């Protein structure tokens, strides 16, 4: 079309020998890539619409389809690659801000892969988790400063601050009903209940059907306050104040009116078709003192029975900010790294703002220890936890538990086509179209999530056992269990770890 020649990223290859023209691909693709050409009697594809979600490939009964990266390109060079040129064409054509989804895809360093774990040899025994007790239970919340005993010398456990009780140090991170589907939420809620952990509503309210999972639900309060009212606050096991998110630090959210339909409208408590705008800041929070006010207003409204989580994006001064939050009365701080996912964020923000969670969590844990306030809060690390080794490393760096979002979605069938913002998710996850939503079977989804987290739990126990550690508490902040590989002195210093061989 004219001068702005946008080259399709993918190419659909169809084997004419195998294709039976059953037209299943046409029905499966919400992006409208496949169509039947009555003149030729054959199927044809529109590559410009393909996002490489692989739905058609997986479902083609004749195995006739393959999607490959389109090698065709502009005449590019190291400075002006195809995507850079493509994006300029798009913006020259529309005048719009580029909108993307999922986490930062750029090749920044992944520090998880530059840290190695320890294991016991000779001088201390490793532990076999198959026959010896291994504690993965974790409590999140403020810990008392001192032990108190009654007149008979027994430990007093009354009046403890409220805690979240996790069987495994993994929670599902905030993804709103609206960003993801009813069936995706149902799968997360049921899996969290079965696993003895928690899922998070995000800023979309809590669907009426899911109040029964309340004891395993974290309800979120963000700047738009969608769906927030007394019963919602009381329904959850904890309340999370969302200040920021790793994928888009410093900016708000915006669910377009086209997605505010039916149950989404009911759950967010706003009219159908009305944009759901979450302003960038909370307009009652301009300081730590103001944050304290929101924290305590939520505690007052729920009679001090729920821990309050404050979620922030990992940004440059994250340690100082976390120190302030720990003094605001919050019980738990969640830090979301710059690779955390999103249903939609401006591309430039997603790709250029924030810092890696590995460095952030190490800096925050350090700072809170230096200031002797580490026990006032628990820490949750999120934003790119990909596997159980990442979980173990995050805890060794100082986290109490981790949030997983993208990994959970992949377990639900996400193929990382990174087109959530279109609302046409062929796997029934990031969509509200009823015909697409029903493609995600919540029974299968629940089972898949339980499988994933159970497998990680076993792996965590194996790794801990290998290190001679038999409880998550003994692993937390235990940076001697980590060694850096290929990191410079400054990186090692921020991470607070030695180099391999030291």
């Amino acid at each position, binding site marked *: 079309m004219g001068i702005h020649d946008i080259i399709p990223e993918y190419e659909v290859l169809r084997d004419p020998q195998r294709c039976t023209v059953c037209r299943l691909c046409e029905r499966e693709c919400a992006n409208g890539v496949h169509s039947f050409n009555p003149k030729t009697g054959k199927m044809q594809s529109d590559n410009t619409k393909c996002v490489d979600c692989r739905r058609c490939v997986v479902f083609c009964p004749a195995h006739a389809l393959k999607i490959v990266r389109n090698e065709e390109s502009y005449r590019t060079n190291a400075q002006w690659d195809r995507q850079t040129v493509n*994006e300029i064409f*798009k*913006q020259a*054509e*529309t*005048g*719009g*801000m*580029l*909108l*993307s989804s999922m986490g930062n895809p750029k090749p920044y360093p992944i520090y998880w892969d530059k840290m190695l774990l320890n294991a016991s040899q000779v001088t201390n025994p490793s532990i076999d988790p198959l026959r010896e007790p291994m504690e993965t239970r974790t409590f999140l919340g403020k810990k008392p400063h001192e032990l108190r005993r009654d007149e008979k010398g027994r430990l007093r456990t009354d009046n403890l601050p409220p805690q979240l009780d996790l069987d495994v140090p993994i929670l599902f991170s905030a993804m709103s009903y609206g960003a993801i589907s009813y069936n995706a939420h149902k799968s997360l809620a049921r899996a969290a209940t079965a696993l003895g952990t928690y899922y998070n509503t995000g800023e979309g309210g809590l669907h009426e059907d899911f109040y029964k999972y309340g004891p395993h639900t974290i309800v979120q309060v963000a*700047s*738009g*306050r969608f769906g*927030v*009212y*007394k*019963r919602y*606050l009381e329904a959850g096991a904890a309340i999370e104040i969302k200040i920021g998110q790793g994928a888009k630090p410093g900016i708000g959210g*915006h669910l*377009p*009116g086209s997605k505010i339909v039916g149950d989404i*409208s009911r759950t967010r*408590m*706003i*009219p159908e*078709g*009305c*944009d759901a*705008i979450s*302003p960038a800041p909370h*307009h*009652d929070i301009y300081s730590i003192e103001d944050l304290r*006010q929101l924290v*305590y*207003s939520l505690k*007052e*409204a*729920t*009679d001090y029975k729920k821990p309050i989580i404050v979620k922030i994006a990992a940004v440059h001064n994250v340690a100082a900010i976390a120190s302030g939050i720990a003094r605001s009365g919050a019980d738990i701080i969640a830090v979301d790294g710059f690779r955390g996912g999103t249903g939609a964020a*401006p*591309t430039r923000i997603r790709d250029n703002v924030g810092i890696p969670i590995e460095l952030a969590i190490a800096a925050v844990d350090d700072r809170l220890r230096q200031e002797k306030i580490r026990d006032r809060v628990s820490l949750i690390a999120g934003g790119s936890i990909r596997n159980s080794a990442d979980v173990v490393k995050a805890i060794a760096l100082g986290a109490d538990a981790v949030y997983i979002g993208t990994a959970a979605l992949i377990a639900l069938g996400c193929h990382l086509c990174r*087109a959530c*913002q*279109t609302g046409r998710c062929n796997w029934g996850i990031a969509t509200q179209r009823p015909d697409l939503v029903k493609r995600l079977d919540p029974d299968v989804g629940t089972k898949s999530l339980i499988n994933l987290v159970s497998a990680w739990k076993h792996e965590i126990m194996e790794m801990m056992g290998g290190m001679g550690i038999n409880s998550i508490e003994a692993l937390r902040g235990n940076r001697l269990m980590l060694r850096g590989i290929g990191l410079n002195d400054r990186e090692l210093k921020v991470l607070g770890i030695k180099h391999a061989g030291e």
Partner: protein
Amino acid sequence: MVRIDAKGKNFQQLNEEIRVAENSDITVEHCMGQRYIGAGMSGKHLLLLGVPGNALGCYLDGGSIRVLGNAQDQTGDTMNSGAIIVEGSSGDATGYSMRGGKIFVRDNAGYRVGIHMKAYREQQPLIIVGGETGSFLGEYQAGGTIIVLGLNSEGRTPVGNLSCTGMHGGRMILRCRRLPKDLPPQVSAASASKEDMARISGFLNDFCGAFGISIQSVLSEPFFVITPNTKNPYRALYTEN
């Protein structure tokens, strides 16, 4: 009716006493800046003497709060239903994100009144300020009704700068002779029609009744109605990448 003396009590102690009080009619004397009074409350009626602190009636879910004095910032934050009546002035962000119920302020209110106020079905929140408000009135307003009367403004526009920024729902009604000069392009303003006045006459009667103000004196000046042009103000902002 039960009386609670707030003198020398911090907010936690005072609010606990209010929560556990079995009588639903409660008078609190000597309020002195205690925050969160009536947080999430329903089914009780508070009469507050003195000056309550920030976040009065936050998440209020029914019942009523009447203040004989001034209220501070974030009065009625994320309020869902019920009534807050202030016989004095209120501070910044009064009615922040409120979704239902009503807030009547006899005198003036601060900045960002009614910010992000929203409505849903039968929940149609209402804020009426008898005097003037500060800047950014009705910022991001998504529903409900905000009325500013300017009763002592003598025809002067009773709002500060940049009202209605980001407004995408609900309506704002100003009693004045001239509209603010800096209304954003995504709102439309017009003189109130007979239908508009009929729609708000019940609200104005309630307000006047609450404070013993004569309705004739309120209706003696012209009214303007401001509504958004679109419920999707930012639709053209993005291009998919």
